[in-house]
């Protein structure tokens, strides 16, 4: 139901009672091209009412293009997009009455005090925003009598936050909202967003900082090179089948010499992991430390290798594969969101060339 033609995995974040309602954002095969340059391609996305939805991807992945297309700031090349059941192009004005938008970079007219600017913005809405402007400014510590051009980036961003929230919108679209905000203001900002969400507002939160997405979002879409590559719940992403597996390979006191054993184990591990489906971001670190005392003066070299990779798949298959190796150590841990993100984001053609003796990174296997 939710996701993308290119989405990896499924969305099973559960229902919240809002599934019978019209989606806050519904995007079908949305495409935007800038001449020959890529914008976004066949983006499919459904944001349910009442959720805080993260939209993550590196700079230039297409987050802002998607948002700007939704808001009618740029025109789509193809596909369909609706907000709260209204068509993004045909019903743009009605949509904008119910949307609060905070752009990544906030610019305003020169020579205006924040108070006058917000008053001008408030004049476009049918609700009286005076009290809300005062309340939000107090909470964010914003001096309304200061001219916007004299404000720091962070304070201009605060003006943007007040402007985006003052009319109590049903959908709040935040494009890289925390840049320029100090940690205390970030905290106040997140509190405000959570309050708005409790009030019933839906939030689309675009960011390339995973920790803040993790902090506030229910679900997240990952965009890469203009395409959605996955839509997941944040909780699911963190406890998903994707695991960070680290195994130690080396001299386990077998019949072969240490170097031979470790070299053989590394080769076996490399071949095994490379042939397994679900293995990504494989890295082999081989250390060859020759010493004369480590084994009681035999003069044998101590070679150790560490293999580390992300694994998403049948855990029995993984355990069976590991059982066939001679391991000195094993660790299967929950990956950080950063690693999960890289797991989805890493371009498929990417092969890093590193000296074999130092580190070997094997591209995605079995896909």
């Amino acid at each position, binding site marked *: 139901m939710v996701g993308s033609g290119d989405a990896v995995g499924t969305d099973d974040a559960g229902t919240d009672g809002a599934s019978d309602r019209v989606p806050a954002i519904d995007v079908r095969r949305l495409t935007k091209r800038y001449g020959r340059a890529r914008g976004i391609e066949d983006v499919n996305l459904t944001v349910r009412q009442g959720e805080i939805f993260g939209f993550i991807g590196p700079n230039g992945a297409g987050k802002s293009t998607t948002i700007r297309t939704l808001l009618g700031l*740029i025109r789509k090349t193809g596909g369909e997009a609706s907000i709260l059941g209204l068509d993004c192009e045909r019903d743009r004005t009605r949509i904008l009455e119910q949307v609060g938008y905070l752009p990544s970079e906030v610019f305003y007219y020169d020579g205006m005090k924040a108070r006058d600017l917000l008053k001008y913005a408030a004049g*476009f809405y*049918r609700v009286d925003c005076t009290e809300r402007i005062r309340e939000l400014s107090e909470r964010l510590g914003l001096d309304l009598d200061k001219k916007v051009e004299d404000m720091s980036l962070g304070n201009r961003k605060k003006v943007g936050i007040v402007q985006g929230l003052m009319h109590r919108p049903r959908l709040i679209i935040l494009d890289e909202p925390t840049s320029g905000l100090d940690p205390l203001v970030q905290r106040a900002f997140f509190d405000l967003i959570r309050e708005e969400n409790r009030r019933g507002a839906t939030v689309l939160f675009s960011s390339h900082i995973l920790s803040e997405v993790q902090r506030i979002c229910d679900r997240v879409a990952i965009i890469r090179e203009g395409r959605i590559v996955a839509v997941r719940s944040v909780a699911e992403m963190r406890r998903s089948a994707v695991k960070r597996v680290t195994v130690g390979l080396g001299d386990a006191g077998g019949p072969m010499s240490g170097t031979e054993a470790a070299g053989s184990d590394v080769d076996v591990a490399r071949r095994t992991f490379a042939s397994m489906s679900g293995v990504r971001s494989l890295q082999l670190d081989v250390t060859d430390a020759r010493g004369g005392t480590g084994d009681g003066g035999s003069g044998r070299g101590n070679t150790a290798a560490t293999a580390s990779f992300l694994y998403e798949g049948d855990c029995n298959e993984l355990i069976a594969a590991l059982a066939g190796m001679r391991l000195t150590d094993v660790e299967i841990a929950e990956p950080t969101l950063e690693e999960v993100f890289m797991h989805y984001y890493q371009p498929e053609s990417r092969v890093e060339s590193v000296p074999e003796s130092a580190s070997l990174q094997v591209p995605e296997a079995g896909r």
Partner: protein
Amino acid sequence: MTTMTASTTTPSRSNAHASLTSRAMHVFLFELKSQLRPFLIGTVTLLAVAVLLLAGAYPIYRDSKSSVEQVIDGFPPQFAALFGVNDDVFSFGGFYRFSSLYLMLTMAIMACAWGLAVFGREKRAKATDFLFVMPMPRGAIYAAKLAAGLTMVVVASLAFLAAVALTYTRFRDDSTATSIALPRLILAASSLLGVGVLFLAFGALTAVLLRRIRSVSGIATAFGVFGFMLVSLPEMTGEDKYRIISPFTWFNVSEALDHGRYEAGYLALAAVVAVACLAAGAVAYVRGEVRAE
């Protein structure tokens, strides 16, 4: 699927209309307020140029006819044509014709600057995102801005007409002035309204089409001076057909003073060009993409 949620918050058509009108008024008043200082400076400049030329320079020219004639005779004909000088400058009507070129230049620069400022305000401040995510159709924003620009041109023109009429009353004892009926003089002075609207349209279209507006005054001056220089093209070449690319000459002041009318063809040309520029500007404004800064 759409609509339960949407319909509960959708206003009636009449409410929506009233709301759109009040938003358009909101933008209109904001533009007038933002543009108040440049408007006052421009209008006062225009009035000062008018009073200096008509009430200050004209009597001096008239009273020192012989010495001025000597100076004019020394001008190469093309040079004199470039500045609009001829033997006629010793009559009130002739001096007004001469002055109108400079008054048109002032109005052209002013109106073009207002067009650039009003329609390029968001572009210059990088605040297009701010305005275009407000719940108001872009076409309505354009119309509100145009109304503000036209208001400034009309008010400045009315102030100018009043200044010309007041100056005219000072020359009751000048037969060359009294030979021209006030309505004809007012009609001739109304040419500034036409020039104002035309150059406002040029400014508006330029503001919408340019990616960046580095200098409002620089672009406006370039437009005005170019228009001023094109006036001499038909005079220097003797080819009347060049009037078609000389906007100041579309409003024939001589025709208004002598016959109480403008040439319908050129007036229509001016109207078509102004409307075409404003319409093209509107299309570009409504359909234009707002790239991230």
